């Protein structure tokens, strides 16, 4: 360990910077933006479907504002954090069933007021924009 002198200190600082940049890339990198057709209107009610397992998909959805809206959370063998869902704006805090569909009433969302859901530990989230 005595070999570790001033030159290696510089090398270490360079490696450190490289690793920090890698971490930033990991954290800011977008997961593939699935633009699936997840919004449909049936009998005057707008349904938004989001799959929850290892995160929420699609991550960003956009739906119509001013229409009675229901969010359907689909789970399939979901045991990770995405099962414990928190949607603060509608006061929803619940652990979703491991497999199944959970319907959440979003009321009549206003335009420009996106609804955000996070998992209990906070590392997964999704956003629904209303236009």
């Amino acid at each position, binding site marked *: *360990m*005595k070999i*570790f*002198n001033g030159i*290696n*200190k510089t090398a*270490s*600082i360079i*490696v*450190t910077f490289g*690793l*920090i940049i*890698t*971490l930033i890339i*990991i*954290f*800011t*990198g977008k*997961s593939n933006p699935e633009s699936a057709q997840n919004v449909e209107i049936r009998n005057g009610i707008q349904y938004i479907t989001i799959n929850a*397992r*290892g*995160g929420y998909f699609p*991550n960003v959805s956009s739906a119509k504002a001013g229409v009675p809206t229901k969010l359907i959370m689909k789970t*399939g*063998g*979901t*045991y*990770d*954090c*995405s*099962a*414990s869902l*928190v949607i*603060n704006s509608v006061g929803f*805090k619940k*652990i979703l*069933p*491991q*497999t199944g569909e959970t319907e959440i009433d979003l009321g009549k969302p206003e335009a420009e007021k996106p609804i*955000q859901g*996070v*998992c*209990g*530990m*906070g*590392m*997964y*989230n999704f956003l629904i924009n209303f236009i």
Partner: protein
Amino acid sequence: MDVKYKTYTFHVTGTHCASCKILIEDILKEQDKIKNVQVDLKKETVLIEADSNQDPKELAQILTDKIKSNGYTLSVDKKTQEKINDNTIWQAIPIGLIFLVLFFILQKSGILNLGMGGKTTPLTSFIIGLIASVSSCLAIVGGLVLSLSAKVSQDEVNDKKNFTLFHIGRLASFALLGGVLGAVGQTIGINFTFSAMLGIAASIIMLLLGLNLTGVFSRNRITLPTGIFNFFRKIEHKTLTPIIIGFGTFFLPCGFTQSMQIVALSSGSFISGFMIMFSFALGTLPMLALLSFGSASFAHGKHASLFFKSVGVVVIGLGIFALLAGLAGLGIINPLFNI
């Protein structure tokens, strides 16, 4: 004739924490013929009043034998601080960061998201436990275990006993609480906010222990925050402490644990809830045991200083991650990442 006390001043090494003062004073005061002990952390000296005519060098040797096992040495002459010590931090930062990068790549890769269909049996709970132990739950549960283990290993000798008690306490409380959930059924809800607050407390503990382990505080001779470490010192010797911490991990925010709690809850009987939570905890055991006993063996090895500092870096990283995620989960800040 009254006894004449002689005053000795020794230099002390190994005082890496504020609580070291209390420990050294406690041990030395128990020795015969020692009347008073005063540790000065800033000057790294120990002032001893003793009823003895011993040669200072001899006395220093005798007293060192009493506190050597805790990592302290007394000497008459000031030992020049080993220069290499200052450089280990430059090795520790990249090492710690490499572990963090690998951990987050693993999370991002999605290979941990394999679904488990069908009914949850003790076997599937065990497999889910195995997955959970390397998932993002590791950031909080593993980070806490790692930082506490490293700190315990650094402070005292009997770490293995404490780790064993922790794991037994964890397995037993998961099984028992699982059983209770199964027996009571749907009536008790697991409180999200309580769990999230506990997670935030855990991440703050990780940050503090991480900073302490990297030694940035002691290097600048700032012994912050004394109160917390004094409290930690006092409780880490108690037999019950590791068991209680093991019990507490049941309530830490971890999606997998919470899902399993729901499964136990709807399982319908004490025995089935007991088995599900026990198998789940058993699945998480290999990884957590590796973290705790691994740190014990490193801590007594040649590269202990490098190990503690690297652990410090890893734990600080995980602590920041857990804290930001926890605040987002509570809706206090906007989620900063989606990992």
